[in-house]
């Protein structure tokens, strides 16, 4: 089958790749694009381990064709840290042991970041509902939910401090 040429933007950088028409975005990320942070758990949209954003919308990259990314903007887990400086969510997940085996973690972080961009002050219930599409078989979720809530509080405080300065 003739491969399709796709031009897109990933984590703010232009990206081009070749794919089969039936390849998923996750196939393209982990294959030709070499971005293996997004994980394949279920490949059917149930587990959220492959979460990315498409034009700021949280989606499962396993439920999207790679060819659909043409002309759109994607963000993956690889774009969360600023160089060597971890994103506050990543730092907090480490401090609060909000991960064990780590397979769900990149999806959890991408989904949590998408939540905090929409809603800087989520309630515990809102965090739990937002992350209902991200399955974790290790932590029991509690540490993850607390880490997201604490990060949100820290980022709000940081934001207040910066706006005063």
């Amino acid at each position, binding site marked *: 089958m003739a491969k399709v040429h796709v031009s897109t933007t990933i984590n703010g950088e232009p990206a081009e790749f070749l794919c*089969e*028409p039936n390849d998923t975005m996750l196939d393209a990320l982990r294959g030709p694009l070499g971005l293996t942070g997004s994980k394949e758990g279920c490949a059917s949209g149930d587990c959220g381990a492959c979460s990315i954003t498409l034009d700021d919308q*949280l989606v499962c990259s396993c439920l999207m*064709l790679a060819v659909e990314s043409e002309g759109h903007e994607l963000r993956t887990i690889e774009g969360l840290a600023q160089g060597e400086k971890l994103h506050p969510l990543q730092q907090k997940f480490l401090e609060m042991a909000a991960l064990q085996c780590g397979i769900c973690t990149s999806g959890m972080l991408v989904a949590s970041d998408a939540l905090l961009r929409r809603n800087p002050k989520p309630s515990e219930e809102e965090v739990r509902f937002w992350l209902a599409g991200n399955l974790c078989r290790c932590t029991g979720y509690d540490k993850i939910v607390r880490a997201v809530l604490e990060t949100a509080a820290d980022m709000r405080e940081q934001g207040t401090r910066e706006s005063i300065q």
Partner: protein
Amino acid sequence: MGRAEQGDDGTIMTELRYLAPNSLDEAIKAFAAAGNAGRILAGGTDLLVQMRAGVVKPGLIVDIKKIAEMMAIEETADGGFRIGAAVSGMALHDHPRFGKVWPGVLEAVNLIGSKQVQGRASAGGNLCNGSPAGDSVPAMVAAGAIVTVQGPNGRRQIPVEQVPTGPGRTSLTPGEILVSFALPPRPEGSSDAYLRMIPRTEMDIAVVGLGVSLTLKDGVCTAARVGLGAVAPTVLLVEAAAKALVGSKLDDAALNAAAAACSAACRPIDDKRGTIAYRTKVAGVLLKRTTAIAAQRAKGN
């Protein structure tokens, strides 16, 4: 999929092509020409899973998300709404007005899958997938939505309840594509609600789903529609339940009669999610609870 493959019915499958046309006419032309090998891609949250499982092996995928009409949410001059078939649940959620006018339709659409799925999945896909348990469908039926479909022979409008004909089947003819849902203007004192019964709190398939849309005037119900899902091969419009509500003050006698009508309409399957007896009883319970929510909302309008 690199070579031509032998399909289940003996036909030779050609390799997959992907098209994302900007115009509806172009989409219909390609879709109609592809015959049984064509599949429409909106959010893809059902199609990609089916392709992955090998249930469908399309020769052509027509992505309709570049067609403006498919992605538009429009409040019409008469106070109604027109929603493109490929509008995602999240886009509908983020619309400033839609959820105020149609809270029941919105809560039903927003029960489809996770936030990730919400970013992609559409009411149009939910309808055309033909599941009797699709959450948005009973709410759309209760709302009295009229769908526009377009095919090689032009456009037509049909009531939403006439689209599904059985599990996985619709009344759309070859080459026809669902274009949009039209929701009617709301008289004063109107609202709607949707409830589904599932054994957990999120991310599950309805055991029973029920939508109610009603209008109250001086405490009397002057109009009502009831949509009932997951208890028959298709989502049902339960006219007998609406009849029991209209003219009443939604008193116990009227609610009991409407609940009994919902239970009587059930022709459910018996499976691990719920027995026939359970689904039949829950249909009546949900009628009462959903009506109470819709009535409470209507009082504020």
